């Protein structure tokens, strides 16, 4: 009887955990530079724009700080309708001092690096002359807030973006606008410490 109760409680908890879908992401709006040819490196400078609308995977204080994302060193290996890049790095910065300005890329990489990582491979596909998509995966390896992520939650985050080369979308000095996100494949949940007896008591 007790086993059945525990089973029912666990099932009820699972049902509650999956009934409300909580999307988490770092939603960004970025401008990207492209290299002149194969062997050169692309870069992207963007703002994290979640605000209060969409949850972030780790707590961010949008009321007091601006958050930016910077991709650098993304080496172009193959150029074409499908372009392949490798070796990029990604960083998310927190800064209250200098508003980001695409005319000055350095304003995106000042402040505190809260998460840093690698974008080992990235594929960009253009569907038309102006519209495309880009995909890759991020592994988080550093930053002041890396500890917010369990070790098992730090790798394989999809980096997904639309790509626009339309003149109305691209800032002076850049080649593309990237409107995208970096997100965990599954919801990141905070760790709650409790003793074994407390855990057992939760089901009695």
């Amino acid at each position: 009887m007790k086993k059945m109760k525990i089973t029912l409680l666990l099932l009820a908890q699972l049902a509650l955990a999956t009934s409300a879908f909580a999307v988490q992401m770092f939603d960004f709006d970025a401008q990207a530079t492209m290299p002149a040819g194969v062997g050169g490196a692309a870069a992207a400078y963007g703002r994290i724009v979640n605000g209060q609308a969409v949850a972030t995977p780790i707590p961010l204080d949008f009321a007091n700080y601006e958050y930016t994302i910077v991709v650098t060193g993304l080496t172009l290996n193959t150029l074409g309708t499908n372009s392949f890049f490798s070796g990029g790095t990604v960083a998310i910065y927190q800064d209250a001092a200098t508003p980001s300005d695409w005319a000055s890329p350095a304003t995106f990489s000042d402040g505190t690096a809260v998460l840093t990582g690698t974008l080992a491979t990235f594929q960009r596909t253009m569907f038309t002359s102006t519209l495309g998509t880009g995909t890759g995966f991020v592994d988080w390896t550093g930053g002041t807030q890396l500890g917010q992520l369990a070790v098992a939650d730090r790798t394989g985050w999809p980096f997904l973006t639309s790509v626009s080369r339309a003149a109305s979308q691209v800032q002076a000095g850049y080649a593309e606008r990237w409107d995208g996100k970096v997100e965990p494949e599954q919801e990141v949940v905070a760790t709650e410490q409790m003793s074994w007896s407390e855990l057992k008591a939760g089901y009695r």
Partner: protein
Amino acid sequence: MKLVKFMAGTALALLLAVAAPGFAAGIAVVDYVGFGWETGGLAASAPGDQFSVATVVTQIDPRFGVNLGSSEATLYITGLTSQGAVTDPFSGVTTITYTGGTLAVYGDPSRNHDWGTYPANGTVPSTFTDGTLLFSGTFQSFSLSLLPSGAGAYEGLLNGTGGSALAYPCSGCAYTFAGTFAAPTGAQIPAGYDVQVDGTLELEGAVPVQNVNWGSLKQLYNPGR
């Protein structure tokens, strides 16, 4: 007298210039994320299938008059009718062209948006179409491209038809594009939806009308009197 007329004419010309901005200078931007689904499934889009998108706004131009600190804004696309999927055998890219369809942006202090699962459902579209209508438009064109990997993008051109942020109905004055990401890309997607979307709406002509009397208007250009 001639000088006064000239000055008044210049002032009105300046006013018109401000009220009718160029697409780049006067553009109002809305950034959104959410999920899309098609009756019958997106990958196997068949003629007559209906594509819809329910999103929450993460950035919005102040001219829309909604404060995302205290309210939410939602953007809802519906009524896009598929003309069928066409797959390029060489690139593997599937392109779907749609006809019809509307897009609307709402401001809502209740902040109640909820995607739920398997739309349409008890909260979709209702929690994405409540509140104050800020902008509504009808699509002139809409097409979506998908890669076998699950990544894709759509774009559409709209006519503005209504809403508090639209100064006047306009043709071809709004444009939206978004990345679309199906489950194989690793994107988080609630059950029953086909793709996650992350996109932008850009609106030319989002200039709120301000009513002033003639005396107040003249005062703007004769501040010393």
